[in-house]
């Protein structure tokens, strides 16, 4: 027995060494493929000449594109607006998603199925552009940042995903909390939220990114340029030069590519900060004690 088992173990050991290397190589390849098109944009954003094809390095290096994006006098207010709406929107969005998700895992609650159905229905059926506008107008939300904060905050897709995460919390925890005299609200913020950091981080990220990238709601509900966000601004830089009456400047292409890269930067800063919440293995067992 011992002798036959020996090669087995060695084989397993051998695999153990080969796999991480292969896996690492695979990801290196995947990242390379992902980066090729982005490299094209990045190179073009630093290139003062305008070309069509792929270049390995800028032909005439210069940061004029970025200067043009950032010295735009009017960039400050849009950035502030973006931060306000992204933070406020993510908070409201997470609040609604977690509350809704928490209620939806109360499977014994009378009316629970009705509520679930009612929410799902709003994901599939929509009123359309004009009726939504009329409601927004009657609420006095048009041309305020509230319209772009509140309207996307109720997101059933994210709510259902959140519910999915909450379901993984052992019911015994809820029971013992109730026995300890916790109200639903107390259970919610003492047990559910602390145990769902990864869920909050990932869904919070999804909210934040969609708020940051939002322009459809801005286009429809905001006509005051002072309330525009960063994304609207970048779009006008990118689209502006396509108009027949384009003002045009030197190296419009460089500026456009710089704008594309600038749109990615906030995420590149934010994501590594969030990443610690994605670390593996929150030991639920430990919380139980």
């Amino acid at each position, binding site marked *: 027995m011992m002798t036959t088992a020996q090669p087995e173990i060695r084989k397993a050991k051998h695999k153990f060494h080969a796999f991480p290397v292969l896996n690492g190589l695979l990801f290196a390849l995947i990242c390379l493929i992902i980066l090729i098109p982005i490299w094209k944009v990045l190179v073009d954003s630093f290139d003062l*000449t305008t*070309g069509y094809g792929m270049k390995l390095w800028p032909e005439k290096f210069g940061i004029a594109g970025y200067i043009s994006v950032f010295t735009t006098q009017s960039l400050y207010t849009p950035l502030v607006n973006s931060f306000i709406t992204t933070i406020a929107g993510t908070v409201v969005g997470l609040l609604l998603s977690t509350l809704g998700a928490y209620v939806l895992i109360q499977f014994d609650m009378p009316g629970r199925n009705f509520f679930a159905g009612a929410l799902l229905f709003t994901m599939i059926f929509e009123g359309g552009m004009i009726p939504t506008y*009329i409601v927004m107008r009657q609420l006095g939300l048009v041309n305020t940042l509230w319209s772009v904060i509140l309207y996307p905050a109720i997101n059933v897709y994210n709510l259902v995903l959140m519910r999915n995460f909450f379901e993984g919390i052992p019911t015994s925890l809820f029971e013992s909390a109730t026995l300890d005299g916790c109200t639903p609200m107390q259970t919610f913020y003492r047990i559910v939220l602390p145990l769902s950091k990864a869920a909050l981080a990932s869904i919070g990220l999804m909210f934040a990114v969609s708020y940051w990238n939002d322009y459809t709601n801005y286009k429809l509900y*905001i006509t005051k*340029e002072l309330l525009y966000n960063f994304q609207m601004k970048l779009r006008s830089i990118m689209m502006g030069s*396509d108009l027949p009456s384009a003002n*045009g400047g030197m190296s419009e292409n460089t500026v456009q590519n710089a704008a594309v890269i600038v749109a990615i930067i906030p995420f590149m800063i934010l994501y590594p900060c969030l990443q610690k919440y994605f670390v593996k293995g929150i030991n639920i067992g430990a919380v139980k004690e």
Partner: protein
Amino acid sequence: MRKVLSLILALAMAMTMLTAFATTAVAEVTKPESISIFIDGTVFTTNNARDAFQARWEELTGIKLEITQPDHDAYYDVLQQQIASGDWPDVMILSSTYYSAYAAEGVLWDMTDAWEASDLKASGRFTGDSVVEGLKIDGRLYGFSPTRGNGCVTYVKQAWLDAVGMQAPTNWDEYYAMLQAFTTQNPDGDDKKETFGVAAAGFVGPEAPYVNYLPEFYQDGTPTFDKDENGVWFDGFTQDSMKAALERLNKAYVDGVIDPTTLTNGTKDCRNKYYDDTFGAFTYWAGTWATNLKSNLEANNLSGELVALPPIAEVGAYLDRVPPVWAISSACENPEGVYKYFIDTMLDGGDMQMLWTYGVEDVHWSMKAETVLAGTDKEKTYEDGQFHMKESLEQAGTVYTKHHIDPMLALASFAEGYYDPREDSVKAEAKAASELFNTHSKLAIIVPTTEEMSMYNGDLVTLKNELIAKVTMGDLSYEQAMAKFESDGGAEWSKAIVDSLNALNK
């Protein structure tokens, strides 16, 4: 300057009074207290000191403006929301589609009489009678445009012509020979890089007038509906002229003189390839774009010298788009007043026209001694009293070129004695391209809408475009394409639409 203006105003007023007496007694026009306007991105945005524009406008008229200016892309969505909510603005900018649809639905005030009695018409400076006629719907005018619509001209790289030892072509054979030379004779001096004679965004344009990006190939052929000399509608797609156009496209594709990726090119791809010295003849917007093309080529260390080609003999004339218009809504309480003080003043030949054409003094333009774009390679110093546009507030490093009215497209000149900065503000190449276009263009016709049109034209255009692409690329012969046109229902839809259009004539 003020004196001259007041003199003109006084004269103009006298003229109006005369015409007023001469015709019937025109009801006295009261001055509105405020005017609500809906404008797109062609008027200065907030970031480009719209406030200064508004203040100046209010100062000139003593009327308050209430401005709504949605994002340029969403202009018509927001306008429709506003119209649906019942809160109609007094004045709005409309594209030709919205103009005719809104006029038909009674959203717009009939300004025919106001136009007939206007100061502008009486001033003798107005040169756009054909534009006004083109904007009339059943003989009535619902909107006004201070400019022509603009269109595309063909730009050819002079350096490439020199490299292959050719002159600018004047007819199809010369044009095609030039394309061939551009493709085979290495005009860019780079042995490795492939070059093409011409490229475009699509073998056929996405919107009316469809053929404006490849006029030399289409010539008198058109894939869409057109009127013959008797006013009878027909579908250009089924005509022999279109067959000839497709043969030209196919030949160019087979010979490799047209960029083979024309099918998938966007306009930006074309521009970048042009700057990249990939092709030599590019049909693009007249006017300001002549300068943009030049400066981008120069940024690439290439010669920026471009020949704006007069239409070759077979083309005859470039196509002028129908311009967007300013219209007054029928909900406006005092449309006569709004017309008189808002629309009629736009081309007053004086301060107001200056405001609409160049913007606000010392904000968008200036006569003071100044160095513009200091510290860049485009730095330029102006002396006191020298007209110049100032650096853009929104996009640093660029200079304003104009405001809402493009000076090259304006339908009226400045009044005599008023300083016209056109000579000093418009770059030579832009001016040359515009003048060439203005003298060699004809107004594109507006095809009216019918029930059949909205039912079938979507499918019909998709089918036609597919066949144009496939014949050009040699996937189908012309005969096969026409057979498919027949079998897929194209012929039937086409006939239904033609019949419905001709029924309108009766």
